[in-house]
């Protein structure tokens, strides 16, 4: 945009790379870039169109992450190392949920921006999505697969809440461009910090098998009132609830009663047991990847 955030960051004394997706704003930003001594770098790029799924040549403002990181001169660091880059931004409201899912897959696969380490996101998202990301078991409607997966994947901090009325919107009818929400409160934009967990890949979870984890969580929470034991039985993953007893999960637990950590433990236990070798399950996971991508 006009560079207000950029100027604030520059005043704080940090090195800034500004990604601008609208060419109309570029000249102004570029003149700012030229007036500074290398503290600012302006790139014509849309952060939310990094690594597009379509095949063929990538045209700006879409971009490949390796090209972006090469341009800004940041090299990949090991997962457990410190945060190499911090990102500030506002999630486009229209495809907020899509973007959250795409980032999530990249996170679990260590692909795209997460190939370079634990990138920290500081992003404005709508209050309703914030509620989903931080929901706990028992929060009816808010607790979803997205909650489990983000909570396992990242530390989530709320930095600031700003009422929608503080924002000028350009909707044709003059109204606020606030997404409708029936069940969850949605009166603010929330600035949220998402820092990938350092120990994400220390247990049985690996970037190579994480798609199975995502698949498992999504299937379980597709109908949150169903009993976990029934689900596992119907997939012939568990017999006689032995697994659940070992994990100290009550046999009558509904899938929405499990904490994110429980899902992680469940997955790791399944990973170790023989039943997970059932090939059809992997075929399904493979299929689900195709549907997502």
């Amino acid at each position, binding site marked *: 945009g006009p560079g207000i955030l950029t100027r604030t960051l520059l005043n704080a004394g940090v090195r800034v790379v500004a990604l601008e997706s609208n060419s109309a704003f570029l000249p102004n930003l570029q003149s700012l870039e030229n007036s500074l001594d290398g503290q600012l770098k302006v790139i014509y790029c849309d952060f939310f169109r990094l690594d597009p799924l379509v095949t063929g040549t990538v045209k700006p403002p879409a971009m490949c992450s390796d090209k972006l990181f090469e341009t800004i001169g940041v090299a990949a660091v090991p997962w457990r190392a410190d945060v190499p880059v911090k990102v500030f931004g506002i999630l486009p409201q229209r495809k907020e949920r899509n973007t959250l899912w795409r980032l999530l897959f990249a996170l679990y696969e260590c692909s795209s921006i997460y190939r370079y380490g634990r990138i920290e996101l500081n992003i404005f998202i709508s209050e309703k999505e914030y509620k989903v990301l931080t929901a706990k078991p028992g929060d009816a409607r808010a607790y979803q697969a997205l909650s489990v997966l983000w909570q396992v994947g990242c530390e989530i901090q709320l930095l600031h809440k700003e009422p929608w009325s503080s924002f000028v919107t350009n909707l044709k009818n003059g109204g606020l461009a606030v997404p409708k929400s029936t069940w969850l409160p949605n009166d603010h934009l929330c600035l949220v910090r998402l820092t990938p967990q350092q120990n994400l890949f220390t247990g049985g979870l690996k970037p190579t098998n994480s798609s199975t984890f995502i698949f498992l969580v999504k299937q379980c929470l597709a109908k949150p009132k169903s009993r976990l034991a029934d689900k596992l039985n119907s997939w012939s993953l568990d017999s006689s609830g032995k697994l659940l007893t070992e994990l100290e999960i009550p046999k009558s637990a509904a899938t929405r009663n499990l904490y994110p950590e429980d899902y992680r433990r469940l997955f790791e236990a399944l990973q170790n047991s023989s039943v997970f070798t059932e090939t059809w399950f992997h075929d399904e996971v493979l299929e689900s990847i195709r*549907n997502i991508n």
Partner: protein
Amino acid sequence: LFRYLHQLKSAGFHVDELFQKCLFEEDEKEKVLSAIRIVQPNYQLPPPANPQTCKSSLLQDFYSKEKAVSYPKLDFTVQELQERFQQQLEMELGSTVTIESVESAKPLTPQAIKARKLLATLRSQWHSSLLQALQKSKHNMSSLKEVSGYDILYPYLCLLPDEEYVGIMMQILGALSPQGESLVVLARELGSKVYNRYITQRKLRSHQLEKVQEVYEGYIHLLAKDSQPDNYLPREYWEKLVTEAGFGPSLNLKGCNWPYMLVMRLGMHMLELLVQAVKVPRNILNPRLEPRLIPVLYHIYSFRSSWQVGLIKPHPIFSQLVSDAAETLLTFSSSAIPMLCPPVPWTSPNFGAYLLNDTRLMRFVDGVTQHQLLLDQCPLVNLHPVLDALNQLGNCAWKINQPVLDIIISIFNDKGNEKLDIPPPISEAPRPPSAPGNSSTWNKSLKHELLLCKKKTAEMHSLRMDALYKLSIANYVRDKVFWFPHNMDFRGRTYPCPPYFNHLGNDVTRAILLFAEGRPLGPKGLDWLKIHLINLTGLKKKEALQERLEYANEIMEEILDSADHPLTGRKWWMNTDEPWQALACCMEIAKASRSPDPAAYISHFPVHQDGSCNGLQHYAALGRDLIGAVSVNLMPCGVPQDVYSAVAQQVEEFRRKDAEQGVKVAQVLQGFVSRKVVKQTVMTVVYGVTRYGGRLQIEKRLREIDDFPEEYLWEASHYLVKQVFNGIKEMFSATRDIQNWLTESAKLIAQSGRTVEWVTPLGLPIVQPYYRSRSTVLNCGMQHLSVKNSSNSQKPDTVKQKNAFPPNFIHSLDSTHMMLTALHCLRQGLTFVSVHDCYWTHALTVDTMNQICRQQFVALHGEKILQDLSEFMLEKYCSPGRETRAPWQKKLMEQLSDVPKTGEFNLKKVMDSTYFFS
């Protein structure tokens, strides 16, 4: 009784109406009669109503008794038809038919024998566990004290013997593809199978079947060759017999449509039983695993962008067993097999076609009931032409072209042939790359490749099964004569009822169908066969008929070679547009030309005549567009005109002018404007393609041209679609006006909250079934199911009502033209069937059919079609006499009254146009 009769009278009814309008089952009618006679001892049944005759001006000749010709006889005796009726009845009573698939010719491997044994054992186990589960669930429901939402199902689980429910579930299990199926589809199938069985039961119990049987016995005298000729149409004769037998309306069952919601609930319940009860030992294929029972079916969600779809998939162990067993028996519902006797003639929207299977006159999308209501309200006499046309199409007897079928089966059982549209077996599917070790270590590209392989295999499987069904059914009836009962969609377009194997199918299925009735070729028949062959090849499209004939004579050697050595010779037939029909035609020509007197050769071969861009033909005739009429062959011409080339020329003209004016994109397009680029867009303009869709089509064509500069794709396609629309406007000026008038009228009607309705010139009432869908969530144990809700209070979907009206209106006209042609062909004793705008008859009668087809087109468009439509809609939507008229109503009235002007074209010219249908 006295009081009841008094009440009846005081409410304005006459006792007679009881017997004229009510539906009776079993002996209800006799009981009612004797009850009335207690009060009125001298009461006599009302005399049967005089049959009414349709007054449509288009069919005056057709229905006038003076000119009536006796109904064409079939080549069967009464006795033979009676036997066929019995066969058909037995088949329908059994509800399913199990037939040998064409793959049974393959030798059996020891592995297959073993797998079959295993499967048989498992199936009997599944059968008993399903029975147990069903009984248990019924017991639980019946013992529920309070009225909970769920036990509304209980009565519906008691309609049939338990064994039948289990049979239906086993049938669904047997037909499940390895890729699985969505819950909604399976639930609907299960539910409607129960419904169909129940209807059959009711027909048996209410003695309706016996009545049908009695009437049918009389009915076949109209069709059999050894009985008295009668001046009746099938429908008239059937009605006469029904009246004479005193059945009256009792032959129709009382309406008992189950709500869609109920069908789905019932289906879901049965599906849940299946998923819970059917299990297989995990170690059945691999003894090293621990022996544990695992479910055969599992439930999984597939996530699409914003919603999730529940799927039921078979466990790979089960799929493996099924594929190992290579079973060669296929089970179909009896309505999937062509009928073995002439169909019951349609006499009302609810009665006709099969003997027992429930069939509707008009197909509808699930949950939409508006057409059925409209048909029920329509005076029956107005439907007579449509019913008679459907009966005529359904009464065409068919047989199998055995030599062609045998060749196709031999290729099918060998390795298939994608080029000839014979799907190869799964064993020919691409092998997935060998993947090392654990699947979690595979990299992205390997996963991608595996996925592609899986996708290809799944596609091949469904194509293969489709062909297997078609060929197996064809093989099952290979020595029989059979019939395709017909019904129609809401616009009156007709379709054969059996879903897999019928004459609407692809080249392969069409090539194995012959008319059961043979006719001599006559003096011109052989020539027509030759022209038909050249038409099938797709060659010589721009040449006159005479030249096509000469070309056929030139390549006679190739034709005979193809006929004599189809697989070992020079294989000329394989490189044609419709290879299998071409091969069949080659064989027919060979036989005919080698017979001592070709003119006397008895041919069963159907010869086709196609309308050239039929939608535009109707538009051009409606608007009397002179240039347009010439380009779609309404005007006599020495050679066939090609509307696509004409539009391409017009567009090129515009482009040249623009290029001279210095328009950049017009200059870039130099040399790229061709028939191919514009064809699809011109073709779909009639069916309402928008600029947006048209641009995408053209962009796709331009992309196919290698040396077209990519950076201009968007601009060029944008420019071209504009010019194509302009070109069409120039050539079909009135057409565009009519299209706009129809669209605008539909828009205003839909905006006023009504659905668009009209009546075809044949009297068929039509309503566009597009509503804003409201869905209801069905709360079932396994999954919540969102089901589209339909009720009469639904609001119309404005956008669909508007956009679909012009194409639907044109389709209602083309179906009217087809029906008129069918009926008049019947009066001339021709065999006639149609695939929408492609008409089939014997080689002998092509000329007569062509003449009738043109006469009826002229007659149809001689009616004041648009004027009538305008009057009908004004009456319907702008009810007169109201003092206060809202502004929108005034606007609608102005719009509907403003019928577009028409051009100068003299419609009579069509009579002499050779290439109108050719």
